[in-house]
């Protein structure tokens, strides 16, 4: 095991032994407090304008957004989007309580299955944990009710996101995660737009290995909550 020799090599370079207890305690304190550094001013906005910035940035990165008034309007928005894209009405959905509470039978042509995605799934519906306005980024932490494969295997990913979960900067999303989930989930994806590659002649093409389309159904639940 080379652990000791590597650590010794580092310490030799730094011209010291293991850190003294007081310094180690200081670094432990820094990790526990995880201080923020400079945060760009662009997302420091009143919440409705953060939501607008989020939408603008998603669209800039080739994602699309439909804004709806409440959860009851989600099935219609999903069905209309799929029809407009000429996609089948069969979707694999995250087994999340908020998604399960949606009145899906209102659109009987939608065939909803719950679980993780398989290679054959064409459309997934995922639950959004948070949106980050700074760059139009979704935060999707893994959990039994939010499988990671839904973000990756389907050609089209639809994310249902409540506007009240949109924050300005990444740091605010980390604090939201720490407050609501606690320990770091196994996997946290920050997703900004659909999959792409510029490996062929440095020219952008959408839809490399992940979803070709990323569509967000944004539920405007924020007005009352923020005031």
């Amino acid at each position, binding site marked *: 095991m080379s652990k000791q020799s590597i650590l010794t090599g580092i310490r030799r370079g*730094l011209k010291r032994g293991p850190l003294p207890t007081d310094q180690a305690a200081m*670094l432990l304190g820094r990790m526990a407090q995880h201080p923020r550094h400079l945060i760009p001013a662009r997302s420091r906005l009143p919440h409705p304008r953060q939501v607008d910035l989020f939408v603008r940035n998603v669209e800039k990165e080739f994602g699309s957004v439909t804004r709806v008034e409440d959860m009851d309007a989600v099935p219609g928005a999903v069905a209309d989007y799929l029809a407009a894209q000429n996609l089948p009405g069969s979707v694999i959905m995250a087994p999340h309580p908020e998604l399960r509470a949606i009145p899906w039978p209102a659109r009987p042509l939608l065939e909803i299955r719950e679980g993780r995605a398989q290679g054959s799934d064409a459309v997934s519906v995922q639950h959004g944990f948070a949106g980050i306005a700074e760059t139009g980024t979704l935060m999707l932490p893994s959990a039994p009710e939010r499988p990671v494969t839904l973000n990756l295997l389907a050609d089209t990913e639809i994310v249902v996101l409540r506007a009240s979960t949109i924050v300005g900067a990444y740091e605010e999303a980390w604090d939201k995660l720490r407050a609501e989930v606690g320990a770091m989930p196994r996997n946290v994806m920050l997703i900004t737009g659909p999959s*792409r590659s510029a*490996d062929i*002649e440095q020219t952008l093409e959408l839809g490399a290995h992940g*979803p070709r389309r990323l569509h967000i159904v944004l539920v405007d639940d924020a007005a009352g909550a923020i005031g």
Partner: protein
Amino acid sequence: MHIATSPAFKENAHAALVNAGLQKALARSGPSFIARRAAAVANLPEFEQLRDTARDIKDHALANLDFYLEAYEAKVLETGGKVHWCADAEEARDAVLAICQAVGARTVTKGKSMIGEEIAINDHLEKHGITPVETDLGEYIIQLRHELPSHIIAPAFHLNMEDWEETFRKAHTDLPADRQFNERRDILIEARNKLRSKFLAADVGITGANFLVAETGSSIIVTNEGNGDLTQTLPRVHIVLASIEKCVPTLEDATSLLRVLARSATGQDFSVYTTFSTGVRRPGDLDGPEEYHVVLIDNGRSAMMGTEFQEMLRCIRCAACMNHCPVYSAVGGHAYGWVYPGPMGSVLTPGLIGVDKAGHLPNASTFCGKCESVCPVRIPLPKLMRHWREREFERHLTPATVRGGLAFWGFFARRPSLYRLATRAAALGLGLLGRRKGRFKSMPLAGGWTGGRDLPAPEGDTFFARYAKAQRAGQVR
């Protein structure tokens, strides 16, 4: 193993300059990288301050690297993962092989990893009957062509559409021979379809890591394709290859570094997929790996600690330095002869394979300083290249002609009045000799220089003389 051709840099560079395909690729792709970074930077007023922040975070992490690595390991263990400490490439290769063999792996998918190239893991796995499949589009074609990447974030930087088509036709013989490749999209779709079944069938997924986070025990990968995520999500075992200097203290530290990474690299505000992986599948999870291994690799890094090259360990592998380098832009990445090209490679490669083999690289620089001016963590790359030149000189690796020339120059440089006298005599003499044509087609002892261009005949006096004259006239102080 990749045999380093860095000692043959000069020959490589000559060949690169007359390689029409390469020159076409360089002319097309170089300027677009520069323009995209400039646009991203212009769009973020705080960018210069963020570079300072990024530098300071990495310096703090390096100054306490032993502490943070141990803290990181403790968190990985807590979340069900395992850390394999490896002193060199051989230990790292063996560690990866042992993990693969323990689960009876037959195929392994791979996300793009420069440390994977550095330790040449693919060859090692193949030798032991395990098939590695590169899944990043650029790495995929590089693997099909048995080449090294020519760029650290755009492995197939040197290839053109016709190369892609030719390689795909040769490799995918199960597909109809009369299929058409009309546009880039056709290439992309063929690769996507080919690789989808590999993702689903792989026993082990190997990725690199852009950062490791001590606070949480997480490894971070940054991709645009999603291939890295499929690689680390679908197989039963996930192996992370990471060098020791990737470790940063907290999520906030990593976040600040991520703010400058994509902007410096591809000119995106943020990459499409920035993913934090922490340990094994949790109770109730419907997907994710059941084993999570981090192969933590030193391979020469700890020996750089405390030396003038410690600053190189700040590098976050964005490639801005090579995108802006006039030498890289002229000869491409393969001329550098090993895994890391461009200015960062010119500093790192001598440290990893020896200055005796890679001494040409720090010499292949105009010292224009563009690399340092765009480095997101402010590594003084020209200064570090100069240190390598000094080491090369001290170890008597520099050719006798160069040493003789330097000694000759040094003799005068140490005697300023003699230096001024001699240069003034030379300038006036050459001016006189060349006054008719205004230039020289050849010069004794300067054939290497005049072989590619004419030497202009000096006009007027030397800089020193003119400066002194202006001073006397009160024009400068």
